[in-house]
């Protein structure tokens, strides 16, 4: 019964990882770049929420209403005027710039905040749980999971049904031809950057409520998002969510067997997928 509870926790944790991974997956799908600053910006969002809740004693949920637009605007500007310059057949420039940004953000946080663990709180909801027989399910992780389903559902609808989504899919298939059709990829890239950073803000704050964080937590968040994308299979949003759930279950069930080995077991499951199922669960072909 303990294992079942751990597995359910893992699935719910997968919702949180899925939120992180969706932005990474979207950016790669559209621009073929990987933003290594992703985790650092999630942590930055959590610190922004912390600053807002401390100065105005507002709830972190209310803070999201400010932080998400701010981060999305930042993502737009960053993509349009900085990362746009790094789009190149070679992956080198984009990796260098985003990795450099991660170093800058992490150390700026270390400089201005303490290196201690911090945590956001929703008050009583943090510890509330639903009792189903012998299984306890946390209300907050469940809420995050539902939020992840809703947000990914909306994103998926946007990509399938809207004009913007059509451009995104077209660019993902063949950016050169899309440009011939009179669509400016730069704008699509910038809006994708804004969406990804909005998602990162939500994920960063959500994760800051679920577990404690410090200025250096970003690299682990980036790694989890990446593992979810690869396990799920590059190029599929829902695959990414499934990959995130696999990773979450691997970590929580692993921890039930061997406490304190949760990270290592998660990484090993990822490496096994890489070894035996390099195209991930959804098995879409990757393009070099």
């Amino acid at each position, binding site marked *: 019964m303990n294992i079942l509870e751990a597995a359910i926790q893992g699935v719910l944790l997968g919702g949180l990882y899925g939120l992180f991974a969706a932005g990474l997956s979207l950016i790669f799908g559209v621009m073929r*770049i990987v933003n290594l600053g992703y985790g650092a910006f999630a942590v930055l969002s959590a610190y922004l929420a912390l600053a807002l809740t401390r100065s105005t004693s507002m709830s972190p949920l209310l803070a999201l209403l400010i932080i998400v637009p701010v981060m999305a605007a930042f993502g737009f500007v960053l993509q349009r005027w900085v990362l746009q310059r790094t789009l190149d057949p070679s992956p080198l420039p984009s*990796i260098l710039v*985003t990795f450099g940004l991660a170093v800058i953000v992490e150390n700026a946080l270390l400089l201005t905040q303490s290196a201690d663990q911090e945590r956001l709180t929703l008050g009583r909801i943090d510890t509330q749980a639903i009792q189903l027989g012998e299984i306890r399910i946390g209300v907050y992780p469940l809420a995050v999971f539902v939020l992840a389903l809703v947000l990914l559902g909306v994103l998926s609808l946007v990509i399938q049904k809207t004009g913007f989504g059509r451009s995104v899919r077209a660019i993902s298939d063949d950016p050169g031809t899309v440009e011939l059709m009179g669509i400016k990829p730069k704008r699509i890239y910038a809006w994708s950057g804004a969406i990804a950073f909005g998602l990162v803000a939500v994920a960063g704050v959500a994760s800051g409520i679920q577990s404690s964080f410090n200025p250096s937590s970003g690299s682990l968040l980036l*790694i989890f998002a990446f593992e979810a994308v690869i396990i799920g299979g590059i190029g599929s949003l829902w695959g990414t969510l499934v990959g995130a759930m696999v990773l979450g279950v691997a970590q929580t069930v692993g921890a039930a067997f061997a406490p304190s080995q949760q990270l290592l077991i998660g990484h090993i499951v990822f*490496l096994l997928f890489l*070894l035996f199922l390099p195209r991930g669960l959804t098995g879409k072909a990757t393009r070099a």
Partner: protein
Amino acid sequence: MTVDTPSAPITRVRRWTPVSLIGTPATVAVAVGLVGLPYLIGLATIYSMIDLFIFILLASMWNLLAGYGGMVSVGQQAYIGVGAYALVVLADQVGVNVFLAIPVAAVICALLAFGISFLAFRLIGGYFAIGTWVISEVLRLVAIQAPQLGAGSGLSLFAMSPFSRDLRVAIGFWLALACAALAVLTCVLLVRSRFGLGLMAVRDDSTAAATSGVDVQRAKRFVFVIAGAGSGIAGALIAVSSLNVQPDSVFSVQWSAFMIFMVVVGGVGTIEGPILGAILFWFMREALADYGPLYLIVLGIIGVAFALFLREGIWGLLSRRGRLSLFPTGYSVTRLR
């Protein structure tokens, strides 16, 4: 009145240019001259210069990966860590001579890199970068849980204790100097070779290289293994000079950040660039390291600025975009008439 002689060649193709005819002997002379330095200057400077040579070694290896092999790794700390642990375990626990343990550690790292390549090469571009990072995290997590490896607190190196402190530092200096020189020589020979030509073709356009008969995977794997061995030697040197191995320090992703900084600022895809970048980085560290996070922010800003606005790096500017070379790696074509 001059008469055209059709048999005479119109152009002359040479390896050696006036610059490399002076530059190569000068570089060799500087390296040889540095051997005498421990007799001349203070211990603290000599100790700090060990780091300079380790930086040159690391930067050259990362440049080989990214600048010639087109592989951007942020996981080279895996080999630094394994090299450092291998040296201490070999010298203290197995009883191998500490100097012999350095090449053995390099071989271990080469084998490890060969194995890892089969995992990491399934990923491309930015995903390859994070993939190498995950693998180094796995090695770190294993190291901090192994009681034989001192768990979280790491290991101390006792094999160097027979030497007096001065001699120990001097030995570290000579070893690091020799390894840095070997790394640069390896890069020069590799780039000059037919294999290096194929490698640059892979970096510029792997599909075109493959259709021209270059075995792309093999070429990349070879470079990945060399870079792993070189980074392993750097780890072994770190253990020899600092006399201990701390898992969170040797497996820190900061090493990758430093390597990237040195190569990007110096000039990626050149032999001279990483050396220049390492020297600059070393001076910056000497001047600014006390400022902690602020120093890293400055490094980050400079690195991003170079990646955005000055992709060829400082050496690219100095060498007038690749037309000057200290080492005879390319071919120089001069018009005779």
